[in-house]
Structure formats: C-alpha cells, structure tokens
C-alpha cells in the first residue's frame, strides 16, 4: 500500500482517507484502485464516496456500521491496495473549437506566456490530461497537468456566466464547463460534447483516472457537431 496513508475524522459519519499530500499524476492509479476496493468493501453500507486529487471521502451508514468497523474496513483495503494498472481508465478525444469568440482568454494566455494564439492552442492539445476529480457541477472534471509554460492564474473577477461546453485553464489545470455557470477560468474554446446530459443520466463521460486529449477543430466541424457558436461575451 501507499506509505503514510491516514484515516481522518471529517464528520459524525464521514471519514477522510488521505493517501497523498500533493497533487501528482501518479496518484491517480492509487486513487482509482482505492475507489474500487472501498466500494466493494462497503457495499450498501456506503452512502457516498468522493475521490479527489489526494483523498477519498467516505460517508458510511452510521446506523448500520460502527465507526470502528468502518475504520477497520478501510484499513483492510489499504493494507492490500495495489495501484490500478495504467490505462484502466478510458481515453477520450474531445474536439474543441478554439476561437476568440468563444475563447476570449486565448489572447490573455498568449500575452502572459509570450506565445502566439496558435502555439497556445497547439500546446493545450499537445498532451493527455488525467481526470483528477469531479466537482463544482455535475460532470465538471478537473484535469491536469497543463504544460508549465501555459500556467496562467484564474481571472481576478470570475465571470457570472460561462457557456456550457467552455474549455478553460487555471494554473496547471484544465476543465470543461458542463452547463452554464459562473466561473473564473481562462476560457480558450468550446466543445459540443454533451457532458451535462451524460452526468444527468448518472453515467458521466469523464471519470477520475480517465485521460483526455483535446483536438482542435474548425468552426464548420464544430457546427456540424451541434456546437453553440454564440460568443461567450454575448448575453447568454
């Protein structure tokens, strides 16, 4: 198992399983393995299990399982934990229309990094990203790591409305907004992939441990896929 794993009390009926202290791509094979093993070990005594970058938060049924029993089950899982084989998650190619009209921060990122807009797009598409965690909204996936040269902090003042499908970066992370929401990430483009509809059905497209590669597409291709071309800054 991972050395230094800790089980912490988070609430009356919630334990935090802390596997790591820092964000790292290599955490994911352990987090995914722990997620599966904990689900198996708790069965219907599990109310919710929330994996994130370094932790798994476990909410158990405290009317049917004591704190001691819950801890013992977690310890048993951790003692025989092996990292999930790389590639157990799925790999997705997500088409994105990168354009100033739907990606107003393309220029900000270019200015801050000294790259051209084309180079920003190329680099954002240039590597696979791991899905670290879901949160913020149904199907919203935090992915990384974005190339160091592209790392630009989030906007000082978040936008009140970011269109569904918007693809953004913040520091070394990237994400897609599944539905219209407020947000402070640097928006580079938009995808037509219906992330919210997947999440709403209980089967999100992207899960922790999956890998994502963004593919730059043209406006006509984006429209053909049913993408919404209304500029981000227009009243949505």
């Amino acid at each position, binding site marked *: 198992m991972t050395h230094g794993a*800790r089980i*912490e*009390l*988070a*609430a*009356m*009926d*919630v334990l*935090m399983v802390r596997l790591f*202290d*820092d*964000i790292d791509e290599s955490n994911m094979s352990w987090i995914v393995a722990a*997620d599966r093993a904990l689900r198996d070990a708790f069965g219907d005594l599990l*109310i*919710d*299990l*929330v*994996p*994130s*970058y*370094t*932790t*798994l*938060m476990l*909410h158990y049924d*405290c*009317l049917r399982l004591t*704190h001691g029993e819950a801890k013992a089950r977690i310890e048993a899982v951790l003692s025989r934990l092996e990292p999930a084989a790389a590639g157990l998650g799925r790999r997705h190619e997500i088409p994105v229309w990168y354009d100033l009209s739907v990606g107003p921060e393309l220029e900000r990122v270019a200015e801050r990094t000294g790259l051209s807009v084309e180079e920003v797009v190329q680099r954002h598409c240039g590597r696979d990203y791991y899905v670290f*965690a*879901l*949160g*913020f*909204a*149904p*199907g*919203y*996936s*935090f992915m990384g790591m974005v190339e160091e040269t592209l790392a630009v902090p989030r906007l000082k003042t978040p936008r009140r409305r970011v269109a569904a499908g918007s693809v953004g970066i913040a520091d070394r992370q990237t994400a897609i907004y599944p*539905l219209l*929401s407020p947000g402070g990430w640097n928006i580079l483009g938009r995808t037509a992939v219906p992330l*919210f509809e997947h*999440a*709403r059905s*209980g089967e*999100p497209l992207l899960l*922790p441990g999956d890998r994502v590669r963004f593919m730059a597409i043209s406006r006509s291709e984006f429209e053909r896929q049913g993408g919404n071309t209304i500029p981000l800054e227009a009243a949505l």
Partner: protein
Amino acid sequence: MSHMTHSLLRVVQAGPLALVVDGGRFGVRHLGVTQGGAADWVSFHWANWLLGNALDAAALEIVLGGGLTLEVEQDATLALAGADLDARLDDRPLAPGTTFAVMAGQRLSFHQPRDGLRAYLAVPGGLATPVVLGSRSATPREQLGGPRGDGSALGDGDRLEWNPCQVRGRRLPFGSAQGVTLRGNQLALVPGAQIGHFSGTSLYRAFNATWRIDTRADRMGVRLLGPELRCRLGSMVSEGIPMGAVQVPPDGQPIVLLNDRQTIGGYPRLGALTPLAAARLAQCLPGKEVGLMAISRERALASYRSCLEAFR
C-alpha cells in the same frame, strides 16, 4: 407523469423560494452532484410523519413565505411542519405541526417568518415529480429535480400533483420534538482532523464567541460573522466536503456548508455540525446569534439516534 396523478395545488404566486425536496440525492457525490434535499430534515420528517407518509417522501420546502399562494384544486388532507411563516388557509391561521383538510377553491398562503425560516408542506404519499439521479429534490444550480426535473424552483402557474392514497392523519405526541430545530442557539460540532492546525486563540474564540448569521446564507452555505479565526493551513488540495462542514477561508470568517454545497473544496475545517445542528442552522434568519459547541462523535451519534427514535 402518470394518468393517476391528481392536479391538486396550483401556484398562484410563487413567493421568494419554494423547492420540491426529499431526503436528498445520494450515491452520486462522486459525479460532482450535490446532496440537496430538505435543509431542516427534522421538520421535513415531521411533516411526512403527520400524514403517515414515508419520512423521505417529497414535500415542499417554503423559505420565508413572502406571499407564496397555492390554490387547492381537489379536496385533500395536508400537513405543515417547521417554521411559522404565518400560514393561512383562506383567512384561517394554520399552526405548524398539524394536519388540516383543504377543499377545492381554497387558498393556502404563506406570509412572513414569525419563528424560523423554512416550513415544510407535505401531501398524501409525497409529491409525484420526476425522479432525477435517484431523487426528486430540486437543485437549481445543477438543473436537477423539481417539478419538471430541470432544477427549477416553484414558479407561477406550476401544478403540484401526487398519487391518490389513503391518509392516516396523526396528531403530535405530547412533548414531541416537532419544532426542536427552531429552539436553542448552540450548534453542536464534531471536531475534524484539521482542528489541530488552528491557533489556540482561534479555537478558544471559535467555541466561546457569539457568531452572527450573515445575510450571505443559502442552501449552499451560511457565513458566520465574529472574531477572525486563523489556521496554519492556507488553502489545501481540494477534497470532499461533508454535510455541515465548518470551513474557514483566508478572511477568517467561517462558512458552514449545507445541503447544496459543492462536492469538493479546499479550505481548512474546524469539523462538521451534527445533523441536528445543521437542521437548526437552516432555520436561522440572518442576524440571529449562535454559538459553536464541540461534542464527541459518540455523543453526536447518540443524539442523532434519539432524534430518529421520535419518528418510530
């Protein structure tokens, strides 16, 4: 919706906020989906208990009142619990913690909070709105649940329906705990693992100061105003957030996270309110003064169990 449902209540005026709620959405937190559900789960359970419903049957959570007016389209028996929002059936005042008969053409209205913030209106068998990801609870930010399944709150002209069923109306037992979440201003908290990172002075203040409920308070979270708390951990790697978590952002003013909280976040926490304390907080109007009180996990569980005993 099935042909068997009755159109029973028509929304004449929606008021500031009324949501379809049930026990909440569980088993989906890992998808980034929030819990939702009745913020004062104790009063919500009482409303259903009064009609002999399953305790988690879908009901209406009415916030503030503010003129919400429902027109009765068919005779029925309903139940009300939780806050006293000056509810009236036509001109007759309705007390929380009771069942009452309504007749077609009558109007049920809610005016202003006289005690507490959220009232629960239960219907026979529960509201028959669409089930989305295992729950009928409306979470507007996520566009899930509610009358049309798209997360919307109650709107003018909406109709609330349920399946006809036999009602076994009950009276509250003597000394019952209906209204327990409207009383008391001490919020019990189970300390979490990060509590050791707060300074001694901050911990003293946290549990001895008087905290005032801020106007920035909703179903996602409630800000508490008082002395500044300091934690050695600045912001952390985002991790799951339990119900009732008391997090302390860099400005030192705690935020208690409730039913519609984000699923993950990165501020250090003092711990998490007990289920009963979270329900109590959900009944607090801005400006109300409360205290935080640390209790052991064992005591919290014992009090939770005895709270549930009341519904047997």
